[in-house]
């Protein structure tokens, strides 16, 4: 049994305006497969489910093909369709209590399809229904209760039992786990797994990304009725390609990510289809995107280009008017002109040495747009060197760096200023990075003045007060006239932040930006940076010694040791299961689990072999003889001959 949906478009008529709920959505579900649909509310998930069941309301008009096990939905008349519902294809609706009849006890309601189709007598039907309910985890005593006497989780199970009563081959589950406790969720996901193993095709509509990632084989990310990304479920939280998928993942609280929740900038829209003109309707018919209750004039946002453009943090001019096709990238399908989340900066074999002291061995690193990358590592491991190379303050000895697709060194040679303004830097010593003879105003306005962006005094003033508001500093004249030595460290750090942000850079390189702040100011400042990340899509490169901080803010973490990146990967992967023993040592010492690791004596590191060998409890002969190479390992890259496995994690 399988379900094929091809180019399905659904429009809800609503007076002169109509809402485009789905546009050319194609989904294939083979038997034994589970496909998840995720997206914000209003993205058309439920409409799709209903369309498959032939249950769209009368004001909906649809185009495209829905093929249920070889039969075209549009060719079937209502009576055949009715036969097929529950028998071949069943749906578990959202809004549990509303879908049950309050005056019948649950077992009767579950048994109803059996009786109605004449499969069995009421008595037998009730026995069968009881069995199924029990399988679904409803206690026997509850069978004769009424819907209002059951809890939400129990009702969900009743609905599942109802859908299963005729043993359909295709099951559509609409938010089966919302507002359920963790145990009930687990139970339901086990049931869904059973469906899969029985060879049923499951369409899972959910905004629970963890469930989608755990249960589904493929995930479709729906936005305003269009599929923006189709991806293998395991990549959903760890390696999304579309900025929208990433933003969804950031907004979702999972058990493993410790990072603070981010949102998606802007609001959800409706897509309204206008019908203008009388004669040539199609010519004047166009789609608008409207924010609910927006002050937009008639909601006339641009009808062309990418649907996500106004909320996307990496939108470029092309996104406004070009049609965006669904493009295959690896095993993903992505609807993005920039082929998914773009790289903002990439280093290839970049190395640096001071005299004959190597500070950075050839390093490869890619920073993604809108990503917060945290670099951790011991002092003297080359973190600041790497950051200064990224910021363009140091020139590498070898290797290339590319920023926004352009070679950075050439860019710097040709038009240094345009490159410099794209990268903001917050220095390790904030107080020293401002001239002591500059007042707050002069310090903050300095980048603006250098770039001649705003020449009139008034526009400079506006720019300064805007950016000061952004870093939560007051812009009143008495504050602007103060000098750095009259400010406290927290204020200086924020002035530096304002300086780094005033030119609206695409990348912020920050060397311990909060080291001198007390925890309360640090919390405020970091919140602010994360807000900027959501609003402006600011990419950030942070150096920190505070692993707890990296855990709270980092999307990805890189670990440095003796001038080498030894481990790079998603923050939660690295922190919950480090693969490099050095990372493990860092994390364990941050947790206070390690004592007395300092060994006095020479810090000499031999040119061959792993730099960690002298401290590594697991080293073998190979580690002394050969420097390990970077290897890909489960979304991370690790430079270790014998990386730790999950089993090692539990040994400690």
């Amino acid at each position: 049994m399988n379900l094929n949906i091809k180019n399905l478009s659904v429009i809800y008529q609503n007076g002169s305006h109509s809402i485009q709920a789905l546009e050319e959505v194609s989904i294939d579900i083979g038997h034994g497969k589970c496909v998840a649909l995720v997206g914000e509310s209003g993205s058309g998930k439920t409409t799709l489910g209903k369309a498959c069941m032939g249950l769209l309301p009368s004001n909906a008009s649809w185009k495209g093909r829905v093929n249920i096990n070889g039969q075209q939905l549009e060719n079937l008349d209502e009576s055949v369709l009715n036969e097929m519902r529950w028998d071949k294809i069943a749906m578990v609706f959202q809004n549990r209590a509303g879908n049950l009849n309050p005056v019948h006890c649950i077992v009767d309601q579950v048994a109803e399809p059996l009786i109605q189709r004449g499969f069995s007598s009421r008595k037998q039907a009730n026995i069968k229904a009881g069995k199924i309910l029990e399988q679904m985890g409803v206690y026997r005593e509850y069978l004769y209760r009424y819907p209002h006497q059951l809890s939400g989780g129990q009702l969900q199970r009743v609905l599942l039992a109802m859908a299963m009563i005729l043993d359909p081959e295709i099951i559509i589950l609409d938010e089966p786990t919302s507002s359920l406790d963790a145990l009930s969720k687990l139970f339901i996901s086990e049931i869904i797994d059973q469906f899969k193993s029985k060879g049923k095709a499951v369409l899972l509509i959910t905004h629970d990304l963890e469930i989608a990632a755990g249960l589904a084989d493929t995930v479709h990310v729906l936005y305003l009725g269009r599929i923006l990304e189709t991806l293998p479920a395991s990549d959903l939280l760890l390696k999304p390609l579309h900025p929208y998928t990433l933003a969804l993942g950031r907004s979702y609280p999972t058990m493993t990510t410790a990072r603070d929740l981010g949102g998606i900038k802007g609001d959800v829209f409706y897509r309204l289809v206008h019908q203008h003109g009388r004669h040539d309707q199609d010519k004047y018919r166009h789609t608008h995107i409207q924010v609910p209750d927006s002050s937009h004039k008639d909601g006339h946002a641009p009808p062309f280009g990418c649907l996500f453009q106004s909320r996307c943090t990496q939108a470029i001019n092309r996104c406004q008017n070009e049609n965006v096709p669904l493009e295959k990238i690896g095993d993903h399908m992505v609807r993005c002109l920039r082929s998914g989340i773009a790289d903002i900066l990439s280093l290839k074999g970049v190395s640096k040495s001071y005299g004959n002291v190597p500070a950075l061995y050839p390093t490869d690193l890619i920073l993604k747009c809108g990503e917060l990358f945290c670099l951790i590592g011991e002092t003297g491991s080359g973190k600041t060197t790497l950051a200064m190379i990224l910021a363009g303050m140091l020139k590498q000895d070898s290797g290339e760096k590319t920023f926004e697709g352009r070679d950075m060194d050439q860019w710097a040679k040709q038009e240094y200023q345009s490159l410099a303004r794209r990268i903001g830097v917050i220095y390790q010593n904030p107080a020293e990075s401002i001239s002591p003879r500059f007042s707050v105003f002069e310090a903050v306005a300095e980048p603006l003045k250098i770039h001649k962006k705003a020449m009139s005094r008034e526009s400079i003033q506006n720019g300064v007060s805007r950016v000061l508001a952004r870093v939560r500093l007051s812009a009143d004249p008495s504050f602007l006239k103060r000098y750095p030595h009259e400010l406290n460290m927290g204020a200086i750090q924020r002035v530096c932040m304002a300086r780094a942000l005033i030119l609206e850079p695409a990348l912020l390189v920050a060397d311990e930006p909060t080291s001198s702040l007390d925890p309360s100011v640090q919390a405020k400042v970091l919140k602010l940076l994360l807000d900027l990340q959501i609003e402006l899509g600011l990419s950030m490169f942070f150096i920190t010694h505070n692993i707890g901080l990296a855990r709270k803010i980092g999307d990805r973490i890189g670990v440095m040791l003796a001038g080498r990146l030894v481990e790079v990967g998603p923050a939660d992967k690295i922190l919950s299961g480090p693969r490099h023993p050095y990372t493990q040592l860092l994390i364990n010492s941050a947790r206070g689990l390690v004592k007395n690791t300092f060994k006095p004596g020479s810090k000499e590191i031999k040119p061959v072999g792993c730099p960690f060998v002298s401290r590594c409890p697991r080293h073998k002969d190979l580690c002394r003889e050969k420097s390990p190479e970077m290897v890909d390992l489960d979304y991370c890259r690790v430079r270790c001959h014998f990386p730790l496995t999950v089993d090692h994690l539990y040994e400690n």
Partner: protein
Amino acid sequence: MNVDLNRNIFQDTWFLTGFLLAAVFTITILVGPMLAPFDPWDMSFTPISPPCAKHLLGINDGGQDIFSELLFAIRNTVFFGLTSGLVALGVGVIIGLVAGWFGGLIDMILMRLADVLLAIPAIMILILTAALFRPSPFMLSLILAGLMWPTISKTIRAQTLAKRECLHVKAAARIGGGNWYIIRRHLMPEMFPLYLIGFASKTRMAMFMEASLAFLGLFDPTRKSLGLMIAYAVKYYYMDIWWNWLFPPILCLSLLIMTLTFLAISLEKILDPRLKSVELLSG
């Protein structure tokens, strides 16, 4: 190097003395010609007369009023010194900053030039040019400035080399600030104390140089100058004229030099934190 000027500076006796002397001389220079009772070139008085109520310092050998002469001479000496000092400061600062900031070949060329100039004795060049070409005193002050800038530029360059490593300078360069922007906004203001000190010492040196050249007779003999007055007076040292004719120009020259010395010392102490003593701050 931030100094609370009001609090520190006037508590320093060195500065206070220098400041008061400077004030007196400034007034003398500004209103001198008006104070002068006679035209200093008027030779109609009885030569070598002792002071009287009419002629406060008496009459010199040419029949001129010494007091009027002195007022004009101070002006000339100070103007010479100021011109030289200012020009030397300007040239020195610019060359020091450029050499320090740009470094490399520019630095090398400018500093070797400075070394050459430092090796040549200024007085010799001045005597030779004055004797050979008879330039105007203004030209001579410019020539002197051209010989004096190397010491200023050496200090400025050294300070620039230190400042260019400052994070705020590097930060301004990274964000795209041009060379002149950084020199103007970041480096120049940082070295304010050095300008004062350099200017004071060079002006002092120039004034003394002017007096020396005049004493040696390398200027127009009718020009009023402290050096020239001393030179004329010295010819009659056997007569009883030292206290009314020889002493006043010597005293004025000494006081002028002392004024600048005092100011330089006190500013150096106050503005250079390494010399800042507790005593100075509290007392």
